[in-house]
């Protein structure tokens, strides 16, 4: 009993910093802004909830948010599941690199994704030039951008598990008389179902709260909840409506996360898994080569083409291909910024490094507490809470920072640390998700073996845990870095005009008319994309399939 109490105390100590962090920089700002909207002149105006939800415009936004998220999820599954199969079961040249390539979009800032699709399907975009086709006035641009963004989620979560399913399970069904399809349906699909469900929920979550993409591609016609919150907050200054919408989103996301947590827990419970290297083989027969070809084509068209167009646009100056737009980034006379746009690179990198540091410390502590076997139910509940920042309106968080952290002792408005703090909030869930499976996979008997050989608890951690976790830690740091670099919703509120980050600068350039601004936006996006892609390719070298759920 005493030992158990001691264990709980250790978990509690590990969790102290993460809890304080989330309380101060997440719960407090969000609560503050909700209160600001609903608590007017000393009175709680809860009637506003009904009023807002009764508004037909708002109801339209809710409806659109839900159905576009569902449609995006369905479309992503439809396109990415064959990809997951190909990555899991086929061996082909360039597979490693391609796996990195399909992951690049996921860490790209939403603003860049929006910009890339604008360059592809928008006015004067590639399709417009070639065939006069424009999709930016239709919902298809948004749906396709969401597929682009979330392809990797499905390939990684579903494909990662698929690669580890023993192919002999299907063979066992085959010799018992099941056709190829029946064997897949009866044996593989039930095994994959929880992973498919988990991936779907993640995609649904990301698209339900989509901001940057819809902000750029949605035009005046289409708005998600998140975009509407931004509009109500920064354009109409209707904090009451914004607060209600934030609450609505909060409830919806909370429900989604609860379901997600349930499916993740069930995911690998009873499956027999094998090493992924042993299950892949070269495609055989015309059907399999055709499938591989189809998947490669879909990747080329949906994932590579938008990025290529973005790069191409950044060089397409009025006077022919050249570095004109890149050169313009170094001048500070545009009137849009107080500094040369190129300075945003330095800002972004500094902020991202600081945010990564914070996210890694907070995330690792939380992951360590969550893996302790004697962790109580309360601690395990914290697991789900850690995911919340991914789903709660970043706009709300950003604005909440501004109004909540403005008085002593927590007057951070003038401090540069405000931006990294907000970005770290989004980074922490990634760190936790990457570290947890690895920490949980450390075989307890290794620690026992080290202890029996004479290692003290501290030495055990240093000699056994650290070497195993180090790679995961690096990967987690890389993810946090890429996500911080691309964070837009919160940063757009709190980054100071003289210190814009890359995504903020891109959005601001796009918000001003003119070829030069557009070209510069493309050039900055290209730079941002390259930085993210390099970070990711370095990660891919480190990564094994067993690490992480992303």
């Amino acid at each position, binding site marked *: 009993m005493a030992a158990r109490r001691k264990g709980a105390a250790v978990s509690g100590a590990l969790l102290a910093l993460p809890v304080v962090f989330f309380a101060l920089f997440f719960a407090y700002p969000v609560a503050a802004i909700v209160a600001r909207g609903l608590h007017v002149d000393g009175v709680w105006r809860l009637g506003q909830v009904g009023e807002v939800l009764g508004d037909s415009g708002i109801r339209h936004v809710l409806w659109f948010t839900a159905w576009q998220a569902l449609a995006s999820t369905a479309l992503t599954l439809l396109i990415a599941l064959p990809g997951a199969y190909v990555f899991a079961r086929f061996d082909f040249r360039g597979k490693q690199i391609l796996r990195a390539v399909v992951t690049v979009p996921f860490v790209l800032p939403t603003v860049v994704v929006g910009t890339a699709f604008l360059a592809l399907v928008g006015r004067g975009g590639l399709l417009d030039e070639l065939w006069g086709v424009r999709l930016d006035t239709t919902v298809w641009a948004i749906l396709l951008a969401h597929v682009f963004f979330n392809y990797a989620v499905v390939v990684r979560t579903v494909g990662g598990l698929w690669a580890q399913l*023993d192919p*002999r*399970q299907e*063979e*066992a*069904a*085959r*010799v*018992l*008389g*099941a*056709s*190829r399809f*029946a*064997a897949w349906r*009866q*044996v593989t699909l*039930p*095994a994959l179902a929880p992973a498919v469900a988990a991936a779907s929920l993640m995609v649904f979550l990301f698209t339900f709260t989509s901001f940057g993409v819809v902000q750029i591609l949605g035009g005046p016609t289409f708005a998600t909840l998140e975009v509407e919150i931004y509009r109500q907050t920064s354009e109409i200054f209707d904090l009451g409506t914004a607060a209600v919408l934030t609450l609505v989103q909060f409830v919806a996301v909370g429900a989604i996360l609860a379901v997600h947590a349930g499916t993740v827990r069930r995911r690998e419970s*009873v*499956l*027999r898994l094998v090493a992924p290297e042993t299950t892949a083989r070269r495609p*055989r027969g015309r059907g399999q080569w055709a499938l591989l070809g189809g998947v490669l084509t879909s990747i080329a068209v949906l994932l590579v083409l938008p990025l290529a167009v973005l790069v191409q646009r950044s060089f397409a100056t009025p006077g022919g291909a050249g570095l004109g737009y890149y050169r313009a980034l170094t001048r500070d006379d545009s009137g849009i910024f107080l500094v040369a746009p190129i300075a945003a690179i330095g800002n972004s990198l500094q902020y991202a490094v600081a945010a990564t540091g914070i996210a890694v410390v907070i995330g690792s502590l939380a992951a360590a507490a969550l893996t302790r076997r004697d962790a109580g139910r309360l601690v395990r509940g914290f697991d789900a809470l850690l995911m919340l920042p991914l789903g709660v309106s970043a706009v709300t968080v950003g604005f909440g920072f501004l109004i909540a952290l403005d008085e002593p002792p927590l007057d951070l408005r003038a401090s540069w640390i405000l931006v990294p703090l907000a970005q770290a909030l989004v980074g922490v869930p990634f760190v936790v998700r990457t570290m947890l499976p690895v920490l949980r996979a450390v075989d307890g008997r290794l620690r026992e073996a080290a202890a029996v050989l004479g290692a003290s608890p501290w030495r055990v951690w240093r000699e056994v845990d650290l070497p195993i976790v180090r790679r995961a830690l690096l990967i987690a740091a890389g993810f946090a870095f890429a996500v911080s670099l691309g964070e837009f919703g919160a940063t757009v509120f709190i980054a100071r005009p003289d210190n814009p980050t890359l995504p903020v600068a891109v959005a601001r350039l796009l918000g001003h008319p003119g070829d030069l601004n557009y070209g510069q936006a493309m050039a900055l996006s290209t730079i941002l994309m390259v930085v993210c892609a390099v970070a990711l390719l370095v990660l891919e070298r480190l990564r094994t399939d067993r690490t992480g759920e992303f």
Partner: protein
Amino acid sequence: MLSLDQATVRFGARPVLDGVGLDVAEHEIVCVLGPSGSGKSTLLRAVAGLQPLDAGRVLLDGRDLAGVPAHKREVGLMFQDHQLFPQRDVGGNVAFGLRMHHVPKDRQDVRVRELLELVGLPGAAGRAVAALSGGEQQRVALARALAPRPRLLMLDEPLGQLDRSLRERLVVELRELFSRLGTTVLAVTHDQGEAFALADRVIVMRDGRIAQSGTPLEVWQRPADEFVARFLGFDNVVEATVSGQVADTPWGKVPVPEGTLQGERTLLVRPAGVRLVSADEGLRCMVAARTFRGTHVAVRLQPEDAPRLEAACALREAPEPGDEVGVAFDAAEIVVLGRRGPS
């Protein structure tokens, strides 16, 4: 009933099955024996239709199976690690093949009950697969494979993961069961004891080829070559020159049975044919080690300048390590192996 004709499978350039020909008669139990990597499992997969042949044919009841997909071959395969479906309970696993063959639900239930009784797990239909012990899993896998009444049942290392005493008991049960049901069986194993106890006929494989085929007694008594002899655990194998009824070996002159092939040969001396005599008679050896084997003691002997010898002694007569002994050979326990040379 089953016959393979020049069956060949290559992984890249390496042949895993190299022109294998074999026949299994109706109701016969054939056991393929070989070390890991000798192509045994690939052989079963080729018959099941899970591994396409690069050359040759597989015939079942005279019908060429080329182009017949796995699910239409009506052969059963019990996988090495059973491959029970973890999402289904015991009954669901056993009924799987019946469902695939569209057997009506009520007849499925009857058959599942019947099979679980047959394998000694009556009433286990509702149990979760994960909760079964190794031996129980093996029984469920067997019931599942038998359920659709396959024309040929194939077993891949059927008892591989079980502990020794359980294995010895189950192998007897399996043989009884198969002869009662009249099942035609093709099994593969690396364990000679298992193969000899189970099979009517044993086929020894090496590097994708068949090294020897015969009844367990034939294979045990007359290994075809040095590889088979060593694989069966015989270590007293040497090069020898046979002339008349005497072979010239590194151990000196050794008597051989009448009618032995003459000339340069490989000679196998069974441990039982190595008799210990007093130190001043026969070949002088030092006792290097001795191992208690239950029915006898295996004694490792080191002659002065010749390869080590293994002798089997009665329990009471075994010398101590370090003792000096003499060795004499018994012609009846000496076998001249088929061919000489490395293969």
